[in-house]
């Protein structure tokens, strides 16, 4: 059953013009419009996510992965967005809904784990407070319930519970990532968008963060969109994968198929350069 369906979505930074789409993309070899100079971060993108499925998005840096992730997580940036995003159980295009609906979806069904810690967490708040914020925003009003749920999430994401009441700024990078994941999972969303979940972490911590996420994802049947430049991460987590370049999807398919039998020239280079 389809949970999220995006058709022909795009995010453009700049004024944009009629020729933006022709002059950018894989064939043009750039994501900057030669006429007006706007950056077409992503365009002509069709993706869908089934319930409980993990979709991987790979591509080189600047290929539009994060812009796509933010757009699908209903995070409003400075980009001009367009296209059609449907979400199960909601009528209409999510890119056009009012703030209230968007906010309700973002506190309930859709969660985003930001690429940059600072975008996702208030570092001056405690780690527990950051996770509690999601619950409190969703209307939890019993202190003991909030406390119990936060402890539960800390345990599930393997963050030391003794550190729960320390300011988030004192946490290690890996712990901050896991606080973000705990926060994203707090109100049991249906879809989690992870933007570069392991950037800047050393390999062993990466493995633990990914393990934790995979376990929780399987246990609760959460659907996820995992954005990464790291093919290993996507290979480990994703059922299906799309490959992006210059703001366009150049290849899509089952992760195993894309990894073992890449069709597009760029994907072949990408995979050969890693494995």
């Amino acid at each position, binding site marked *: 059953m389809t949970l999220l369906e995006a058709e022909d979505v795009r995010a453009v930074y700049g004024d944009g013009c009629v020729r933006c789409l022709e002059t950018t993309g894989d064939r043009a070899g750039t994501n900057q419009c030669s006429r007006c100079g706007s950056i077409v971060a992503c365009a002509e993108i069709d993706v869908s996510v089934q319930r409980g499925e993990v979709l991987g998005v790979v591509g080189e840096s600047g290929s539009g992965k994060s812009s796509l992730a933010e757009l699908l997580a209903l995070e409003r940036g400075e980009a001009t967005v367009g296209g059609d995003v449907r979400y199960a159980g909601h009528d209409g295009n999510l890119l056009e809904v009012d*703030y*209230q609906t968007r*906010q309700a979806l973002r506190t309930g069904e859709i969660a985003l784990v930001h690429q940059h810690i600072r975008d996702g967490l*208030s570092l001056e*708040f*405690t780690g*527990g*407070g*950051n996770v*509690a*914020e999601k619950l*409190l*925003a969703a209307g939890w*009003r*019993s*202190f*003991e319930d*909030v*406390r119990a749920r936060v402890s539960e999430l800390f345990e599930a994401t393997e963050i030391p519970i003794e550190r729960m*009441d320390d300011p988030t700024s004192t946490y290690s990078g890996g712990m901050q990532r896991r606080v973000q994941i705990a926060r994203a999972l707090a109100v049991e969303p249906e879809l989690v968008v992870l933007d570069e979940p392991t950037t800047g972490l050393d390999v062993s911590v990466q493995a633990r963060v990914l393990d934790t996420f995979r376990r929780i994802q399987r246990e609760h049947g959460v659907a996820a969109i995992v954005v990464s430049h790291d093919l290993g991460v996507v290979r480990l987590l994703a059922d299906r994968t799309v490959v992006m370049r210059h703001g366009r999807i150049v290849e899509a398919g089952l992760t195993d198929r894309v990894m073992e039998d890449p069709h597009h020239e760029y994907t072949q280079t990408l995979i050969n350069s890693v494995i």
Partner: protein
Amino acid sequence: MTEHEQTGLADDASAETATEGGTNDNRQPDRGTPIRAETVDAALDALHGEGMAGYSYAYLDEHTKREVRRATLKAIAIPGHQVPYASRPMPLARGWGTGGIQVSLSVLGPDDTFKVIDQGTDGSVNAANIRRLAEETANVSTTTDTTEADVIQTRHRIPEEVLCDDQLLVLQVPVTDPLRKVDPSDAANRKRHAHRNYGKMWVHLYENVVEWGEINIGASYPTMVAGRYLMSPSPIPRWDTPKLDDADHLSIFAAGREARIYAVPPNTRVKPLAFEDRQFTVERFPDRACHLCGSEDTFLVELSETRDGSDGRFETCYVCNDTSFCEKRHSDPDRPKDHHLDREGVDWGPGTPDVPRTTADDAASERGESG
């Protein structure tokens, strides 16, 4: 010109007259009263009596009063919402009650009785000066008795005696936005107010409970007004916060420095933020009574002072913060807070849920024993 320079009191109207050489014969007469005098003392003498002639009624000009009233009406129409207004420079520093003075002077009329409280007392320099300013410029009578006042301007307290539906309380506010504590960006906070998005404030309360076991915000307790806007009730103690809920009187909160006015109309629901299992509590003074009047059901403050027979040592004692009511209690210790109303048992002021309150009878007998 030299004459004015010597006195140092060159009034700008007459100075201009001198430089422009009398070309402004059609000048409007209400530009102030030129005072010609040789010495400062002579100038002050000349001011007396004549000096007020150049001022509008209630000090502020009519445009200012209209602007403040307009903002006040809007604030009353949207309970708890901070309405911007054109705050004028006042003859005292911003942060000393300029907002409160502007509202008070805009609503006072010659028939009104005015009371000014500064942290519970009528006698502080600032309170006395504000009272005098209103007395001289707005021709109002002033009082220190809460029950007699029509307009009460207050800094950080709500009187102990119950306010009625014909009274107006003007509270001075230093920091208008309760969310500034959790996010210094006013732009972001305005958005939060617009969307009723108070998650950050709840996190602040959560962390407070984590740290202290209970919500430990001393003054300016964040409060929901009519279920819509989060409001700072100005830095009144938690003790006074419940008095705003379903009150008979109108409360107007004014900040001169931040140029914002907001209001709680009569009979409006005002609910302090709290968890279901961590209730809002007021300050507790276990086993303490005012050492002047013996009250146990008023907001007490700690005093350290040397007293007769203490050989110069400092002794700590507690006194009522509301001096006017303390004086009344002094002569009549059992006077209830609603003594001036025709109904009894008005629920005014705090009930502390987790500490049983001594009943009036117990309190009286205890006082009898100790006294």
